[in-house]
Structures are given as structure tokens and as C-alpha cells.
């Protein structure tokens, strides 16, 4: 496994997301330009991207992006993966050699399906549960190996460096996706390391975020009740797990999940109508441990689209814009104007109110 520091990541960051709600796929060139505009918000210690709809040919297989310190890690990982998965195809993740990016780890990707017999043995688990278990094991227990992403038809590309360089390095201009997330990192207390770069990915969740979660300590312990082990000690990881817990495991619709993560103040809840009052009150009472406190603006990608969410007191910047079926969300308006000079509408995100991009024909794109 990577040498995981038992130190929590914190710092300022730049985030940007672009999606076509129609599911039209487009090159990564735009997102690279967009994030590059916010160069000053990063410090070269980490950058990364998440792309959705990039593997149409493997649309219904788990695309596992792995980074390894050394070949032994690659072997160990393959060995371990094969116990659960049938690996349909695997290859090194293509990269360009550019001088800004140095001491790169081994980068490899697998396209895999969960073996039927495994599904039978662990009949009480969903397929996703199995994937999560495997990812957690690799990250926690296989020395020198780390899973960057594990969703279907999506992938996370990240590393140490300025995001625009990472983008070039991973040749993202050559990929096409309907949803792109990008992150430029400004860690204040860790020397950047590839695994620690954002986005953080689990299943088809990818999270980029700017801010610091003051409630991290309890969020992490709260998640532990439900079997999530936060090995990275990044807020991003916690946010991803919370979304996974609330939406996938507890089946909360996005808006309720957001009412948990960025709950309204009791005083606001009191002012609501009886039904909403009871709903929000009950949510807060049950999910107090999941409340994200402190300043954050976060972008969450998933197979169904993209969500932008600000903390309930709006302590971090987040701007959004629409132009036709395109949705843009970024830390700064400039990052949007760079790729969409004259959008139909531009607005600032409201604290606690999610900005939702819904993919209209998710399945269509899947087998396109």
C-alpha cells in the first residue's frame, strides 16, 4: 500500500466541472483550459480529473484505475483482483512524457466483471458492496497499490503537479466524456502524493472539493459505524463515502442527501410547513453525524450526472452557469467564461442548496 500519512489533508483548492445533460461527449481540452485559469488556486502539489462516459466499449464493466509504487504491487493487485473479478481487458494508462511531471508511479487500468460464483458466495452483499470491499482492501492492505477509481464507464486521472500538466500528462485531450470534473490542489500541510490528489473515486462516485470539513472527526467515526474505513484521511474521501452511504445504501434521493450533508438551521426548519418540518427534523436527528460542518464547495460526479454543493453558510466560492444543455460549475466565474464566454445564465450557488446536473439518456450513452 502507499505510505498513508495519518494526517488529515486540508487546504484551499480550485474545482471545475462541465457536463452535457444531453450526454453529448466532448474532449477534455475544455476542462483543462478551465482549471488552468485557476492556476493560482493550486500549488502544484496535486491535480486531477474525473471523466464520465469515457469507456463506451466497456460501459458495463468496472473500470479499475490503479496506481502502484512498483511492479510487485501490480502483480499483487492483479492477483487479488482476480479472486473477485474476471478481468476482461487491462492495459497501462496511456501518458505523455512531459517535464513538469516527474517520479510517476506505475499507472494501470483493468476492465472487469464480478465473478458469478463470488456473487453466489456473498449472496447477502450487493455487487457494489463487493467492489467497495475489494477497493478498501487494496488501498489498506496491498503494499504500494492504490485504486484511483472503480466505477463503470468512468475514470479518475490524477497525480502530483498542476492540473493542466496532469491533464496533458494523461492525454485527456484525446478522451471524450459527457461529464468532466477537475481539481487543482493547494495542500497546506502535506507534501503532495499521487494517491492523495483529487478527485477521490469510489464505484462511480468521484468527488472534488474545496474547503475543510470541521466535522471530519465525527463524520469519519460516523461512517465507521457503517463499515467505511477512511484510509486517505481526506475530506474528499469522507464526502464520497457519505454520498455513497446516503444515496446508494440508504436510498435517499439527492435532495434529501443534501439536507443531511448541509442541513438547514433549526430556526429555518421551524419555519417550514408541518410535513417538511417533520422530515428535516427527523433527518437531522438521525443523521447528525453526517452533517458536513465548516467551509466547503464540492463537486460530485456519478453515472447519473453531477452535483455542486456549498456548505450551509456558504463559506467557500462556487459559481454555476448554463448554456443550452451544458452545465458549468467552478470555483470562479472566470473558469467558466474561459470555455463558455457567454452562457445563458450565470449564478452563485446558495449555501446548502445543491446545483444538479441530470444526465437525460444515461443508458443511451452507456452503449453508444
Amino acid at each position, binding site marked *: 500500500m502507499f505510505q498513508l500519512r495519518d494526517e488529515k489533508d486540508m487546504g484551499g483548492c480550485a474545482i471545475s466541472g462541465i457536463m452535457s445533460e444531453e450526454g453529448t461527449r466532448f474532449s477534455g481540452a475544455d476542462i483543462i483550459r478551465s482549471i488552468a485559469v485557476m492556476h493560482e488556486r493550486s500549488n502544484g502539489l496535486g491535480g486531477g480529473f474525473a471523466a464520465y462516459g469515457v469507456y463506451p466499449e466497456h460501459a458495463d464493466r468496472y473500470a479499475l484505475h490503479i496506481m502502484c509504487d512498483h511492479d510487485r504491487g501490480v502483480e499483487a493487485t492483479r492477483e487479488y483482483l482476480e479472486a473477485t473479478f474476471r478481468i476482461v481487458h487491462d492495459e497501462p494508462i496511456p501518458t505523455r512524457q512531459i517535464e513538469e511531471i516527474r517520479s510517476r508511479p506505475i499507472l494501470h487500468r483493468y476492465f472487469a466483471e464480478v465473478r458469478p460464483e463470488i456473487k453466489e458466495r456473498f449472496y447477502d452483499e450487493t455487487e457494489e458492496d463487493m467492489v467497495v470491499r475489494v477497493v478498501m482492501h487494496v488501498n489498506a492492505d496491498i503494499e504500494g497499490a492504490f485504486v484511483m477509481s472503480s466505477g463503470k464507464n468512468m475514470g479518475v486521472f490524477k497525480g502530483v503537479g498542476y492540473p493542466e500538466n496532469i491533464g496533458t500528462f494523461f492525454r485527456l485531450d484525446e478522451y471524450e466524456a459527457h461529464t468532466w470534473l477537475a481539481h487543482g490542489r493547494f495542500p497546506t500541510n502535506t507534501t503532495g502524493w499521487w494517491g492523495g490528489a483529487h478527485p477521490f473515486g469510489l464505484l462511480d462516485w468521484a468527488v472534488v472539493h474545496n474547503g475543510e470539513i470541521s466535522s471530519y472527526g465525527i463524520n469519519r467515526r460516523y461512517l465507521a459505524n*457503517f463499515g467505511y474505513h477512511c484510509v486517505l484521511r481526506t475530506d474528499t474521501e469522507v464526502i464520497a463515502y457519505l454520498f455513497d452511504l446516503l444515496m446508494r445504501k440508504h436510498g435517499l434521493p439527492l435532495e434529501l442527501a443534501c439536507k443531511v450533508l448541509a442541513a438547514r438551521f433549526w430556526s429555518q426548519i421551524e419555519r417550514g410547513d408541518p410535513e417538511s418540518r417533520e422530515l428535516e427534523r427527523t433527518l437531522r436527528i438521525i443523521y447528525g453525524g453526517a452533517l458536513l460542518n465548516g467551509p466547503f464547495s464540492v463537486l460530485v460526479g456519478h453515472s447519473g450526472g453531477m452535483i455542486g454543493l456549498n456548505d450551509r*453558510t456558504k463559506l467557500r466560492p462556487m459559481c454555476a452557469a448554463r448554456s443550452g444543455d451544458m452545465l458549468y460549475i467552478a470555483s470562479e466565474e472566470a473558469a467558466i467564461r474561459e470555455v463558455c464566454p457567454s452562457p445563458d445564465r450565470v449564478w452563485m450557488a446558495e449555501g446548502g442548496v445543491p446545483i444538479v446536473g441530470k444526465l437525460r439518456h444515461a443508458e443511451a450513452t452507456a452503449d453508444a
Partner: protein
Amino acid sequence: MRKWLVQPDFVVERDPERCIQCQVCVRQCANDVHSYDPEDELVSSDSATCVGCHRCATLCPTGAISIREAELEFHPNANWTAWTIRNIYKQAESGGVLLTGMGNDRPYVNYWDRMVLNASQVTNPSIDPLREPMELVTYLGRKPDQIEFDRSNGGYSVKTELATQLELQIPVMFSAMSYGSISLNASVALARAAAEAGTFANSGEGGLHRDIYPYSKNMIVQVASGRFGVDVEYLNRAAAVEIKIGQGAKPGIGGHLPAQKVDRAVSETRMIPEGTDALSPAPHHDIYSIEDLRQLIFAIKEVTHYEKPVSVKISAVHNVAAIASGCVRAGADIVAMDGLLGGTGAAPTMIRNNVGIPIAVALAAVDSRLREEGIRNRASLVVAGGFRSSADIVKAIALGADAVYIGTGALVAMGCHLCQKCYTGKCNWGIATQDPYLTKRLNPDVATRRLGNLLRGWALEIKEMLGGMGINAIESLRGNREHLRGVGLSESELEVLGIKPAGVGA
């Protein structure tokens, strides 16, 4: 009785330059320390019976009285201190058990003083509670792991039937202090203050006096081994019911309210004959095992139609984590734990000073244990035992407590001077006594106001500390040990507490 070896604990000094012979001190001392000689027209003091409660010094209009610890020094001896020697003298004369009141006064490590809190700098903003909302509202009671809901015309409606919760405006409650051990005026003040502050007071095992009824929506009533004052009406009148298994000051020990404290009102409230000792057995004689506890919990839930949260109060002992877990699995909605420094109206000194473990470690162990077992949501944790300030409370919540019980702090707010003589029934401050001449010294209006002020002050401080940490809702601090760091603690202590040492970053 002639006590020829026992020397006074205190020396009362009267400054003749300032004493005006007004005799206020004479009228105020229930221990007859001060007396007036009409012949000499002179007020004088006899230190022998002084308990150091400062009543006289406090009311003296000229500040003529000062009270010092008796200077009579024994030959220096690290082991045989004056305290140990005096105790032996007392027992050699009385042949009895050493009695005392209030909490443990021995110099154990106080873990609240070995933990420090965090604050935001640069990387995230601290929040100003005077400008931004800052939420202390706390709900105590059983909570499900996840919500169930229906989609209804575009919106959602809750399907989950939430168990009754106690809503606290501030995560601080008044711990169990029975009417009998304290005066009715004190009881009323606690109940009123709780009602006014939107929190709860605990009846202790003294029953519920008629004068408390108006505030019973803010009362937690206790069912203790003596079952005093317990009947269906009593259980249903309250907001919640607490089964008292143990008390921090005297784990494993019962209670004893001496007959002279059982006057008419007390006897009516406790439902026992007037002028008889009120004895609480050490154990509940219908609880010899965890499954017995489960039966009592559900008996109470049945009687109260599953409308009242049931709390189980245990004293923090070595195996507290397992015991607490057992209580939760037995059906407790709240587990209250009372630690080594917990107070009492009367306890054997040696028990009080030597039995039980510090509440901080007990809390840390229990919170972690319940989370490991995935049952932390099933019950709220309330901790008690020596909470002295808002800082202690914030630290406890960060360790994992849902709320805190304060007893001694509340009494001090009402005027208690910690003389530790509660068991004598001669409380000069009108708190731990039933003597009408003394009880009227505590004007419930004044006491209620002082308690309210204390809670208000602490609430403000808690909000300031939360804001400093960049948190604006108490649930984001609860169990958030990232905001705690240890100072001067050993590796193993840090491990038990589940916190990092100061100096280690995020």
C-alpha cells in the same frame, strides 16, 4: 461527646478592628461557632465546630471574619498526612464509618485538564456566534440507523416513527439530587431553572413533590433501588424515567436518608412513614443480571406506553464499556454514566475517594465500544461527575457525550461552598437540609435566576468555542475527537481517550 484528639479543621479569625458586634454571624451559623455574650456585649467564635462553609464570612457586613485551615502541623510525612491521621483519630473515637458529602476531593488526574481544544486559523474561518447561527439543540433518545420515507405528491414524508426524544436547548442537565437530600426550595429552583432554560432536571430517588408538578415536563424521574415515591402517576408525569443502578460517588453502595430528615413532606413525597430512615439497598433486588434490567426497562416502557425514554444510570467502573453496551442492548434509550468525581449527599469517605474510574476515560471507552458494535445510535450517552466549566463540557462532547449532567456545579451556583457536610443536615446555605430555619435561606427565585445565569453563561462560552473550531452545530462536535489533543498524557491514556497528543497535526 468528648473528642480530645480531634483538632478543629479550621480557625475562625475575627478582626476586632472591623467587628461591630452586629451578631449577623451568630444568627447565621447552624454549627454554633459564633456566640454573643450580652454581659461583655461581645461576639466571639469557637472554631471547634466550624466546617468552613463561609456563611458567616459571606454575610458579615464589615468583612471582619476570615477562615483559615487549621495550622496545627504534624511532623511532615508524605504518607501519614494530617488528613489520614485525623481520620484515624475520628474513627478511634467513634468506631464508625467515615462519612462525607459532595465529590471526591483527592488529587487524582483530572483528564479535562489534560485535554485542549482546537481552533480555526487561515485554512478555514472561525464563526462568530454573535453574528452567525450557532446550534446547541440536542436530542436525547434512541435513533434508528436510517430514515424511512414515502414519496408523496412530489415531496417526501417520513415513515420512520422516531422514538420519543428529549429536546435540550443546551446539552447540560441537572443531575439526580433527591428532595430529602436537598431542600424543597433547592429542588424547585432546579426544576424551574431547567424549564426556563429548556433542559431537564432529575428528581433523584426522592419522588416528585407537588410543588415540582408544574415543571414535570422538564423532569427526569428516577427509579432507584429504594423505589421511593414510585407509582404509575409518577412515571407518567415526567419527561423520561431513569433507572439508577449506581452513583459515581458510591459505586456498589446504597443510600441512607436519616430519619430526622424525613419530615412530613418528605415522607409524603417518598411514600414512606414519617421519621423513618429511607434506605436504598445497594442493588435493586429485582435486578441481579442484565436480563433483569431488560425486564425492568420494558416494564417501565409498558407502563408509560412507550412514550418516555428510559435512561439507565451506572457508575463508571472498570468494565464500563461492556456494561454500557449491555444496557443499550437491554433497551436503554439513554445511558448515563457517573464518574470518580461524582457528588453525593452522603457517602463513606473511603468509597467516594477510591471506587470507580474517571468519567473521561469511561466516556471514551464506551463511545468507542458502542461505535465498534455499531449501536451508538441506539442510545444517547449522558455523562456526570465533576463537570466544572463549559470547557469540561465541550471536551466531553468532543469525546462522544450527547449531554452532560451537572450536580455540584448547580449547587455551587445556588451558594454551596463545598464544605462537604451535607450529611449532617445542617447546611448553612439552606440547600442540603430540611430544617425550616435553614431551608428558608434559599429563596427559589434567587436560586432559579442564578442557575439560569450559569447555563446562559456556559451556553455562550460553548458557542464561542464551537465557532472557534469552525463548527456551528453541536452534532458536528459530538464524538469529533479531532478537535481534542492531549497534554501530559501517556501513550496508553491517549489511546484509551482516542486522541492525539498536542503537537500532532490533523
